[in-house]
């Protein structure tokens, strides 16, 4: 993975301040480590659901940071709306993950009492918002992936996942249209907006490859028709992204460095800060109802 050998000291802090019912029940409860260093994964379906959920929770959280600070009122409303959809999808997926896991963890317990190393989102989702161009280009690149992904997942052999995906697909279709419209406006707007959009595209490009990575964890699920192999979406994704970029007079960057690690809990430094903010209140009052 390129991260060196496993740490000598276990990374602790798996919600160690949390009440008993939120803690992992394994004997190694105090030593939750990223799967990259232990080779351990939750049950495949739990792992797959967390990947789907965490992308949406973290990206939705990032979008919600814009609320009240967007360039125009219409975008305050639109970005909040997209954030709401994504967090709504995440909430359903986490609830399902908790049920499949069978340790009594609710969606809130999974959202608020896991540490960064236990999150399974793409690095792309957790990167800071940057300027409006970075936010929009990220949303475009991810939504162009999410739309076909959810479409296929809506035929999942797991009926609950299929239902969540079908609902999410409708929402994602709108998100993609919104983001693609803005990519056109920014790319083909002014000299400054073009430069900012191109810079955003260049900066984010190393993070797109992780969307299409296949690993052994999901292999049995793919074989059983529960999830799909994301690498099968890559070609069509590249074509659709290239087509919008062409219309927006933007140049699709070449493939160089391919950032990855989110699916194994190896994140950027940004996720810890995001979660620090998101989880502070819930963790300050363990066991409280809100």
């Amino acid at each position, binding site marked *: 993975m390129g991260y060196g050998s496993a740490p000598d000291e276990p990374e602790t802090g798996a919600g160690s301040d949390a009440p008993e019912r939120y803690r992992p029940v394994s004997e190694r409860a105090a030593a939750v480590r990223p799967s990259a260093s232990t080779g351990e994964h939750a049950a495949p379906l739990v792992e797959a659901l967390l990947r789907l959920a965490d992308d949406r929770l973290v990206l939705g*959280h990032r979008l*919600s*940071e814009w*609320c*009240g*600070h*967007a*360039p*125009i*009122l*219409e*975008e*305050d*409303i639109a970005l*909040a*709306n997209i*954030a*709401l959809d994504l*967090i*709504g999808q*995440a*909430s359903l997926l*986490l609830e399902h993950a908790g049920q499949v896991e069978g340790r009594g963890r609710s*969606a*809130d317990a999974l*959202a*608020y009492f896991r540490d960064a190393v236990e999150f399974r989102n793409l690095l792309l989702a957790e990167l800071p918002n940057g*300027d*409006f161009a970075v936010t929009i280009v990220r949303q475009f690149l991810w939504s162009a992936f999410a739309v076909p992904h959810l479409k296929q997942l809506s035929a999942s052999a797991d009926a609950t996942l299929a239902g969540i995906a079908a609902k999410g697909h409708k929402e994602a279709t709108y998100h993609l249209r919104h983001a693609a419209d803005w990519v*056109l*406006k*920014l790319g*083909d*707007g*002014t000299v*400054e*907006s073009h430069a*900012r959009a191109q810079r955003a595209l260049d900066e984010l490009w190393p993070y797109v490859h992780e969307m299409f990575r296949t690993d052994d964890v999901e292999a049995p699920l793919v074989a059983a028709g529960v999830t799909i192999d994301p690498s099968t979406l890559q070609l069509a994704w590249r074509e659709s992204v290239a087509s919008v970029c062409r219309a927006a007079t933007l140049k699709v960057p070449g493939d160089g460095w391919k950032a990855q690690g989110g699916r194994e809990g190896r994140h950027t430094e940004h996720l810890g800060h995001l979660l620090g*903010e*998101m989880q*502070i*209140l*819930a963790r300050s*009052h363990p*066991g*409280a*109802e*809100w």
Partner: protein
Amino acid sequence: MTPTNAAAPPPPETAEQLAAFEARIAAGEYIEPKDWMPERYRKQLIRMMSQHAHSEIVGMLPEGNWITRAPSLRRKMTLIAKVQDEGGHGHYIYCATETLGVSRDQMVADLLSGKAKYSSIFNYPTLTWADIGVIGWFVDGAAIVNQTVLAKASYGPYARSMIRICKEENFHKRQGYEICAVLASGTEAQRAMVQDAVNRWWWPSLMMFGPGDASSPNSEELLRWKVKRFSNDELRQRFVNLTVPQAQAIDVALPDPELRYDAASGDWHFGQVDWNEFWQVVKGDGPCNRERLAARNKAHDEGAWVRAAAEAYAARRAGAAASAAA
């Protein structure tokens, strides 16, 4: 930017026009955008409606402050939805105000320069999660008392926008009260949190109805023209009467030693509002006036290149469409 306010001076108003206008108001008719209206009426409405829209927009900031820290997924979603609704209300009222001949650009410029006012309540900070509950309960509650009356205002577009907005505000108020009720029956720390928030927001919420009738400069004319239907003091009393039993129901104390029920009038008597504090905040020296205005200006300034891009793109598309049609 179109300097709509600096357009040619309006034609002089005749006594007949004014009499006919006031007769329509007296008969309970709605005034519509294309109808004749006195310039003072137009100006008063632009002032009130744009202040209202600005309040929705600035109000997104104190509540938005807790979106990223909301303590559960459900609370996070309802808060995002609420703040989004406020943006929607602002948008809707800006549009209604434009029917009076002022552009949104102009109104926004007046907000950003500090010329236009917005509700002073949003110049107070949201320090804990309980503030989100109390704002819904008190601030949206007070807004509903005001807006239910404004929904019967004589200017049609304003009245209609208030009807729609009131429905959503009622929802927000219930959510806020429910947050408070949960906190009030929660842990000791949660109970302390909600009581502290109530202590901080109670008096500023009473100030939301504006100065007492004796010192409210705009009220008399607004009442006669049925832009307002009740005086500031009447509405304040109504709010207190509604809220005291709600506080009792969840066992939260209101920070007023003079609060007592007056059986003769059926009103809850309350103590003296600190009008010095009110005027201090109105004049710009509240705890967050500078930060709120700075945040709005920052978003506007940093968004300039985005708006320029959208305009350039739209102009290019329009040009392409025109040359294709030629």
